[in-house]
């Protein structure tokens, strides 16, 4: 059970992930799952829930950090159309692997959060859009949902109340872009995942033209604790405007890679040294990707940055999905950037010219540079192509594609140039 004293909280979404068989309803219930749900369904109403979530300061955990309560308050009421709740479990941003652990270890936490969110938004049909590769996780979710239906926690007249909600797991099929919320909606409508122009925003016109809320797994899994202990309780954890805990997925050159749920405001250094057992080689990272592959890199000078949405923006990057990829002195950053350029070129949905052409260009030039066939003019091409893409497209994939290239150019131009010098030496000695 999560302590009601905010000072004593050790975790919210991950409070029970280590408990054996927490995925079964019986064990989850023993640990408090669904205990507060009857109170919410019988004594709370939509305004009260949305107010608590607003007070909590919860900001979306999917990447953009948008305030969840505010998002919910944008949903028009009494439109005569159904409202849909979509859980974004696409988890495709390179470096991110947290939602998977919530779903496979504590699926009932997500289900409970979705029932509460669904109740606040008057949702009859809710879906979990899970990336297609997570077959095991989809099976665990489906089994948990089956148990929840059998216990009258889902379906008609939940726990004897007037509220009814169906929940369906929907598997994607391998397309990073489907994590973008409007592409996710297109995909759920049985189409290729091509992002839509915004506005209209999904809250007003989403799934089949109806009001739709898209929230990340971690966001929804935080809701039960907020409603049980109150928005003010959550707001007392972390730092102002960046409240609560956050799960950081740490990978790359650390000794103990993994998911760590820590209070917002914990520093990067503490996370890497105290939780992740430090670097594999050396004592200072060569570069850190702080918020998934689409975020600008941080250098050693930012090692003490507090992990909050606001501090990472100040440091010139973003918190994103909380995916931290650490690179020590052994990392080949030119090769890594080339690999990411391939990723974005492969995953661009192709509907915006700057993104389709730009990601292709970046990949081709990076291939050339990595294999030692680059020239000084290529650096200019990389810079101009990246700058030309950012902010000129329907979705943020193009900005994400530009971020690693611009970081490499800014911080490691010598590494790029030595690749070129190397090739010239080879050519001369050949």
């Amino acid at each position: 059970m999560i302590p009601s004293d905010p000072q004593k909280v050790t975790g919210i979404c991950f409070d029970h992930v280590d408990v054996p068989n927490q995925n079964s309803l019986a064990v989850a219930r023993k640990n408090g799952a669904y205990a507060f749900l009857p109170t919410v369904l019988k004594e709370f109403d939509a305004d009260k829930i949305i107010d608590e979530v607003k007070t909590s300061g919860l900001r979306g955990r999917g990447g953009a950090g948008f305030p969840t309560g505010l998002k919910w308050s944008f949903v028009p009421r009494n439109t005569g159309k159904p409202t849909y709740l979509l859980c974004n479990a696409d988890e495709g941003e390179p470096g991110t692997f947290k939602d998977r652990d919530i779903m496979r270890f504590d699926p009932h936490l997500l289900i409970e959060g979705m029932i509460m969110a669904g109740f606040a938004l008057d949702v009859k049909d809710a879906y979990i859009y899970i990336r297609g590769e997570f077959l095991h996780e989809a099976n665990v979710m489906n089994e948990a949902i089956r148990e929840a239906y059998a216990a009258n926690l889902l379906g008609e007249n939940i726990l004897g109340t007037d509220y009814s909600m169906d929940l369906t797991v929907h598997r994607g099929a391998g397309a990073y872009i489907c994590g973008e919320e409007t592409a996710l909606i297109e995909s759920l409508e049985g189409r290729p995942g091509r992002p839509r122009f915004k506005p209209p925003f999904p809250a007003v016109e989403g799934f089949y033209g109806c009001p739709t809320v898209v929230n990340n797994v971690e966001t929804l899994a935080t809701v039960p604790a907020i409603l049980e202990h109150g928005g003010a309780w959550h707001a007392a954890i972390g730092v102002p405007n960046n409240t609560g805990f956050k799960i950081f997925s740490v990978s790359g050159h650390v000794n103990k890679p993994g998911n760590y749920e820590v209070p917002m405001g914990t520093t990067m250094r503490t996370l890497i040294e105290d939780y992740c057992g430090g670097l594999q080689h050396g004592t200072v990272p060569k570069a850190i990707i702080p918020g998934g592959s689409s975020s600008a890199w941080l250098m050693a000078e930012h090692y003490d940055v507090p992990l909050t949405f606001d501090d990472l923006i100040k440091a010139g990057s973003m918190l994103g999905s909380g995916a931290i990829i650490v690179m020590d002195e052994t990392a080949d950053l030119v090769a890594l950037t080339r690999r990411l350029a391939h990723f974005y070129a492969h995953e661009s949905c192709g509907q915006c010219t700057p993104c389709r052409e730009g990601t292709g260009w970046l990949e081709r030039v990076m291939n050339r540079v990595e294999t030692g066939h680059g020239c000084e003019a290529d650096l200019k091409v990389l810079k101009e192509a990246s700058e030309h893409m950012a902010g000129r497209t329907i979705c943020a994939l193009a900005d994400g594609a530009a971020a690693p290239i611009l970081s490499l150019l800014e911080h490691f131009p010598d590494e790029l140039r030595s690749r070129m010098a190397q090739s010239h030496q080879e050519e001369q000695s050949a």
Partner: protein
Amino acid sequence: MSAVEQALPQFSSKRLEEIKTLIARYPHSRSALLPVLHMAQEDFEYLSMDVQKLVAKTLGLHLMAVREVVTFYTMFREKPCGTYLLEVCTNAGCMLNGADELVRHLCDTLEIKVGGTTPDGLFTVTEVECAGACAGAPVVQINNAYHEKVDAAHMDVFITEARGQGGKK
């Protein structure tokens, strides 16, 4: 019914029941397209043109609507692959922990290129994007199951065992 239509593969009656239940979960049957394609790929191994026609007919969609989805999503295959599909993640976290070396080892051992299938039809090796399991880098998906912290020795054992079973999963 024309001769061409009769030649189409068919879903089992159990599958058709499942599809009916599935369609009822959505506001429109079109939403069932991705899940039905997953089912079809499970039943028929890959999505041949005939299987895509079957899916289109089952959901009352134009063939083009099915085709554009099949070609957009990387998990859908239009061609058969080996009995064992080895999908190595080579994105950032896995790359920093030896994924490229692992791919090279697999290709050398199996004497194929990335994307290729061994002549006995047992193994296909591909590179995939971040599998969402980077703490377990390098990650290899073998027929949809995640294998984490995989090294060359682990794969060698797997290959020897798979060969010993003579191609049966």
